[in-house]
């Protein structure tokens, strides 16, 4: 439980970044070596602005490892298209 709370606190760094584009992030679970995070989209989220998976995975891993050194990989679950409604244009 403490690990999960620590990990969730560590995600604050990533959460602040994602919020700029209208997204949230939460920790879905941690097993022996892997963390699963879920990205959620607010109604006005910029659909095309979400960072790519490879970047999110390494950034989340970087912030989680100090509190959970055994984690060596991260799975990012992105919002489904129906969860994001704003037509943001990344270009």
């Amino acid at each position: 439980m403490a690990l999960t709370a620590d990990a969730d606190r560590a995600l604050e760094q990533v959460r602040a970044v994602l919020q700029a584009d209208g997204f949230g992030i939460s920790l879905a679970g941690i097993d022996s070596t892997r963390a699963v995070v879920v990205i959620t989209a607010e109604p006005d989220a910029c659909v095309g602005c979400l960072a790519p998976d490879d970047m999110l995975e390494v950034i989340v891993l970087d912030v989680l490892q100090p509190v959970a050194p055994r984690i060596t990989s991260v799975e990012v679950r992105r919002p489904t298209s129906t969860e994001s409604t704003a037509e943001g244009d990344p270009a």
Partner: protein
Amino acid sequence: MTVTLTGQTTQMLSPVPPTRNTDATVAPRLGNVDTARIGLLHNGKPGGEHILDGIAGVLQAEHPGVSLPRRFKAHASDGAGFLPELAGDWDAAVIAVGDCGSCSSWAIRDGVDLEKLGIPTIVFVSAPFGTMSRMWATRLGVPELGIVVVDHPLAHLPSTEIAETMGAANALRVRAMLTGER
């Protein structure tokens, strides 16, 4: 590491993250910018062109012999396939602007690719993405990539304000970063 003490097995967990790719370093800095070809790469995000305008204005005034060719990306959130072509044409590069999660990740990726081509590069990103951009550059193997962080949001600001407060105001800093001035 596993340590056995009096019949009990304890697993020791290292607090040190896995080894990062630290093979790459930044490209050599310019001796000066007097006659340099400093490429200005606009990724298509609104406001980026005005940042580059502001930088160009100051550098041109300070160094009449500098050349400032421009290139544009078709999509901010995709790779710039033409980067290898620039290796012989540009002495340095400035990229603007990463102001979302996706486009900032690609701007950093382009900057890292240019550094690996031997072109010292500065990337402009907006405030929410500054820390993430540094982490990403580090993971891509160029932890010392030049990153300038500007206010966010910027797309709605008047072009003259962006050019002045984000471009021109940072032009000499860009020059210093490209030449390694202290």
